[in-house]
Each structure stands twice: as C-alpha cells, then as structure tokens.
C-alpha cells in the first residue's frame, strides 16, 4: 500500500488567487456577517444590510482588476474558467444583488424578519451565482446551482408567520429539487457518454458520438429542462407565479432577475460548450420552449389581477424572448457568439428594468398593503415620480424605443433574422405578435396608475426611503441609458466564451 501512496502522491493544485478573488471576497464578507451576527447579536441588525451591500460592491473590485487584466484564465483542469463572459455575468449578478439588498433593507427590518441571516443567505446565493458564471464542469455547475438555490428556497419562506410565504417556500423547494433531480439524471448520462465531467471533454465526446444516440438526446433534454425550470420557461414555469406571489417581494425580485440570469448562464455554457455539435436536438427544443413561453406567458398575463403574478407571467414571456436566440445558435459561422451576446444583452437590460419595476411595486405596496392591480390605481395622484418611473419600466419591458428593452428585443430579432433559417423567421414572427399582446397588459397597468382613481380616494404620499430611492434611481438611469445609448451595453455584452475558442 505504501508504494501505491507514493505513486499517487498528491499534487497540490496550482491556484490562481487572482482568478478566484471575487469568490474569496464574497466568502470573506459572508463570514464577516455571520461573525458579526454571532458576536453582536441583535445589535448588529442596523449594519448588516449596509455590510452586505458594501461587500457586494467590494466584490466588484477584483472583477475590475480581472477585466483590466483581460486574459482568459483556465483553472483546475478546466473546471473553472474566468473569461469575458463570466466576468460580465458576475458583474450583472453582483449589481442586481446590490439592488436587491437596497430593496430589502427596509422590507426586512420593518417586517421584523430574521435580518442577519437573511443577508448571509443572500450572499451565499450570490456566491453560487458567481461560481456558476465560471463553472465549466458538471460537478461545479451542480454545486453552484444548489448553492444558489437552497438559500433562495429558504428566503422565499422567510415570512414565517405568513401561510402564503410558507406555501411558496415549500412549492419552490419541491419543484426545485425535482428539477435538479431531472437535471442530475441527464448529467449522469452525459458523464456516462464521455467519462468526464469537464464540459470540454463532453463536447468532444458528444461530437464523436454523433447526434443519433438516444441517451445523448435524453441527457440534453433533461439538462435543458432542469435549467428551463430555473429560468421559468414553459412548460417548466408552473412554480413561478405562485412562488413570486408568496415570497417576500425583494426575494421575488431576486428570483426574477438574478436567479433567472444564473439559470441562463448555465444553459448557455452547457449548450454552447458541451453540446455544440448536437444542435439538431437542442435547437428544436429551445424553439418549442421559446415559442411556448412567449405565448403562454403573455396570454395568462392578460388575465392577472395581482401585479406580482403579472410580473411573473411577464417574466415567463420575457424568458421566451431571452431564450429565443439559442434556437438558431447551432449552425456555425459565429451564430453561437451572436446568440450569446444577444442573450447577455437581454439579461443585462432585463435586470435593470425588471428590478426597477419591482422597486416601484415594493414602494407602492408598502403604502397600499396589497399587490392587487386595483390598489395601484391612481398612483399618479399621490406618487407622480413613481408612476413615471413605473411607466418607463413597463414600456421598456414592452420594448418601446428608446427605452432599454427595445434594444434587447432588437438584438433578439436581429439574431433570429440573420440566421437565415425559416424557423428563425417563424420564431421572430411569434415574438412580434407576442410583443403586441404584451403591450396590452403593460399599458393597462400603466393606464390604471395614471388614469383611474385611487381606491378610497387615499392620496396620502408614499413613504420613501433613501435605499429604495437609490435602487429606483440606478434602475431608471440604466434602463434609459441602455436604450438611448445602446453602445454602453453592447460594448460589454459583446462577449465570447473562452472555451468556444472565439
């Protein structure tokens, strides 16, 4: 046995500290919050939110140095990669999480919920997302997914005394676990086909196996299904409206933006790195998911009376748009890069406008105590600024120029139309029809806020806090800026995956 041990002598892996600096900073901040909590107990409550926010911003510093450095770093036998794509996605995660912290600050404090733990979990979840952006092997992706999901399950149930929050938490948990089970089964098959968990190796093996191997097809479908759950694409969307409605609203915003973006990261990486050669499987699959998401999401959104549910279905429809470029990403000639940057562009803009909309919802719901559309009526009379902001976000979501959402949709249509595939055109047409339908409920909500009378004639001003105001400001400025000057976002989202060789 001694001989064995010698021959197998453990080689300490080379660690590129700069490359994993963002994760380490985040880990440090998380540990700090936990320690502060243990040492100071209740006295720490007023500062944890600030600490979490600062920590997220501090994490952006190593991101900047890495971006300035500019080299693609491949670590741990290719399991962990820092490239343009991962840096941009990490930045999106951190900034959206920062806005979520701003949104949570008063919500959590006033609701008398467990505060220190809340931010600890939030940071853990963000860490999972940051890790997801760099993960390039199945184990890392799986662990990152669980790391970002499990704290999220708990945060959804955070309003412990509220039955709806309990219900949402349990549903989210169960559906999440089922989805990851399906995904894991697919991953196990992929491992069986290639004998490796590295996406690069899997890509080679899938290409070698050819496309007609049933297990490869099944693996792809199961994995895509697992992440389609995460991004709430039809028919894996059923959880989203219920969970969005029941969860504390800042957590809903977090799920709708950051968690969805993380799902997209994994989807993009898997599809473009691990199965680029099996496009005949995932192109039709993604096509179905995209068309169904747009259509079902919009149709059901027309019938919603609760703003948060409305946003959930609108989010489902938006998912359809975001995922659409992938449906034509598989026939070479830079189509993958085009789709990649279109999705990333959409994610960045979507994060700003959707978080903004949720910010307004949180502010208004603080006053009215309800998220029914009727309670938003007449908001213009007592909160004109908020109403203008909400209108901007809603119209941006609808894709009206010159607001950010327009450019996002434009990029999607551009990719679909330049692919030169008939199915791409059909999907573009489906998208076009849907964007008309979508405008109806966005505009209806805006109209209600502008035109209707406030319920009970209550025109008392809305309580506003600095953190909510800054969250709104950030989202509003970004939404406008990305629409008016799309090169701002286009410069950052014109990314490639290191492993793609582009």
């Amino acid at each position, binding site marked *: 046995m001694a001989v*064995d*041990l010698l021959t*197998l002598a*453990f*080689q*300490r*892996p080379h*660690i590129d500290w700069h490359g*994993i600096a963002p*994760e380490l900073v985040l*880990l440090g901040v*998380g540990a700090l919050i*936990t320690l502060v909590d243990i040492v100071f107990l209740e006295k720490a409550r007023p500062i944890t939110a600030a600490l979490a926010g600062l920590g997220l911003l501090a994490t952006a510093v190593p991101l900047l140095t890495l971006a300035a450095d500019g080299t693609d770093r491949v670590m*741990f*036998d290719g*399991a*962990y990669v820092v490239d343009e794509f991962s840096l941009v996605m990490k930045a999106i995660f951190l900034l959206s999480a920062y806005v979520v912290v701003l949104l949570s600050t008063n919500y959590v404090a006033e609701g008398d919920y*467990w505060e220190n*733990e809340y931010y*600890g*979990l939030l940071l*853990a*979840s963000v*860490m*999972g997302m940051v*890790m997801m952006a760099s*993960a390039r*092997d199945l*184990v*890392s992706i*799986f*662990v*990152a997914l*669980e*790391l970002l999901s*499990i*704290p999220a399950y*708990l*945060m959804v*149930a*955070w309003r*412990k005394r509220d039955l709806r929050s309990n219900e949402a*938490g349990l549903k989210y948990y169960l559906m999440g676990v089922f989805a990851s089970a399906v995904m894991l089964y697919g991953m196990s098959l992929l491992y*069986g086909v290639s004998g490796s968990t590295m996406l690069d190796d899997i890509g080679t093996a899938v290409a070698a196996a050819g496309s007609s*191997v*049933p*297990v*490869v*097809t*099944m693996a792809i479908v199961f994995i895509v299904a697992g992440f389609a759950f995460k991004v709430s694409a039809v028919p894996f969307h059923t959880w989203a409206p219920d969970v969005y409605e029941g969860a504390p609203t800042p957590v809903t915003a977090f799920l709708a933006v950051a968690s969805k973006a993380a799902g997209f990261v994994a989807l993009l990486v898997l599809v473009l790195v691990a199965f680029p050669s099996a496009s005949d499987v995932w192109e039709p699959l993604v096509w179905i998911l995209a068309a169904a998401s747009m259509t079902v999401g919009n149709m059901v959104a027309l019938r919603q009376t609760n703003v948060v549910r409305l946003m959930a279905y609108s989010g489902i429809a938006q998912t359809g748009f975001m995922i659409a470029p992938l449906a034509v990403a598989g026939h070479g000639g830079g189509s993958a890069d085009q789709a990649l940057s279109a999705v990333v562009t959409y994610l960045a803009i979507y994060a700003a406008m959707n978080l903004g909309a949720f910010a307004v919802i949180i502010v208004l719901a603080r006053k009215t105590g309800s998220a029914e559309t009727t309670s938003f009526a007449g908001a213009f009379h007592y909160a004109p600024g908020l109403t203008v902001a909400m209108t901007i976000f809603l119209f941006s979501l609808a894709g009206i120029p010159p607001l950010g959402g327009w450019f996002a949709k434009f990029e999607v249509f551009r990719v679909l139309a330049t692919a030169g595939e008939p199915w791409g055109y059909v999907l573009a047409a489906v998208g076009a029809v849907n964007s008309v339908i979508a405008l109806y409920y966005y505009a209806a909500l805006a109209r209600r806020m502008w035109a209707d009378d406030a319920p009970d004639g209550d025109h008392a001003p809305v309580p506003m806090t600095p953190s909510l105001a800054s969250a709104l400001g950030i989202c509003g400025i970004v939404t406008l800026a990305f629409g008016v000057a799309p090169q701002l976002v286009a410069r950052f989202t014109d990314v490639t995956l290191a492993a793609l060789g582009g």
Partner: protein
Amino acid sequence: MTALAALEGMDRLTSGEALVAQNVAFAIMAITMVVAALRMVTTRNVVHAALYLVVVLAGVAGQFLLLGAEFVGVTQVMVYIGAIVVLFLFGIMLTKGSFGEDDGVSSEKRLMAGLVGLLVFGVMAAALVDSFEDAEVAREAPSTTAEVSDSIFSTYIVPFEAVSVLLLAALIGAIVVARKD
C-alpha cells in the same frame, strides 16, 4: 472487508465465477431494492416507509461496493442511513398526528402518478437499451480512496469548498425557518 476484496485471487474481476457471483449478488439486491422501493411509496404506515427506505439505501450501498466504489458505498451508509434516515424519523415524529398512519390517496391521483412513472421509465429504458446495448462493466481494479480524494482536492476543489458554504447556509437557514419564535 468489501465484497470485492473477498473475490480477490479469483483472477480479478473477469473470471467466470466472479461474474456469476456478482450477477447473483446484483440480482438479489436489485429485487430487494425494487420491492422495498415499491413498498415505500405505497405503504400506509409512514414509519414503515422510512424503514423500507433504509433497505433501498443499503441496497444502493451494496451496488456501489459491487461496482468497486468502496468509498462512496461507505459514505452512503454513513450519511444516508446514519444521518438522513434519522432526520426523516425525526420529521415523522415531529409531524405525527397530522396524518396518523393513513395516507389516503385518491385512485385518480395514483393513476396519474403511475402513468407518469411508467412514461418516465419507458423512455429511459428505451434510450438506455438502445444506446448501451450489451456494454460490459469491466473494471480492472476498484478505485482507491486516494484517487477519489486527490481529485476532490485538486480538480474539484472549488465545488468542494462551495459545498461547505452550502451546508453552513442550509444549516443556518433551516434553523431560522424551523425554530419557534
């Protein structure tokens, strides 16, 4: 002592006797597992269900040993049977009285569940049979714990560290959610 070690000297893993013995062991365990699993999802007694789960988990550990994955097998026994099942038993006890022993399921629901289950199995089985046909598991030697740990601490170091964060977060969160206040 593992099952594989017991077969040492029989011309490693490829000899005829070894294969017969392995296949017999597999068959016994597999049948036991399937029966136990079916009982688990159908029994009306929740505690019995937990015990059937133990049988399935032990069977899985046995399969791991049969496949030469000793370390995973041992972990399976320790974590699953030692910890998780105990958690389940606690869960059952703490929620006792909500169902009693009866978990009345409507036949309609059972039918739907059965159909979905069959569908899942059908597609999986068709794909697997078509893809792997009669491929053999022909491992030269069981993997060593050293190999597994080396790879965990080099290639998989990031997820390994992340799991520690995950466990801590789950622990804290679960306490907050489950405690009375």
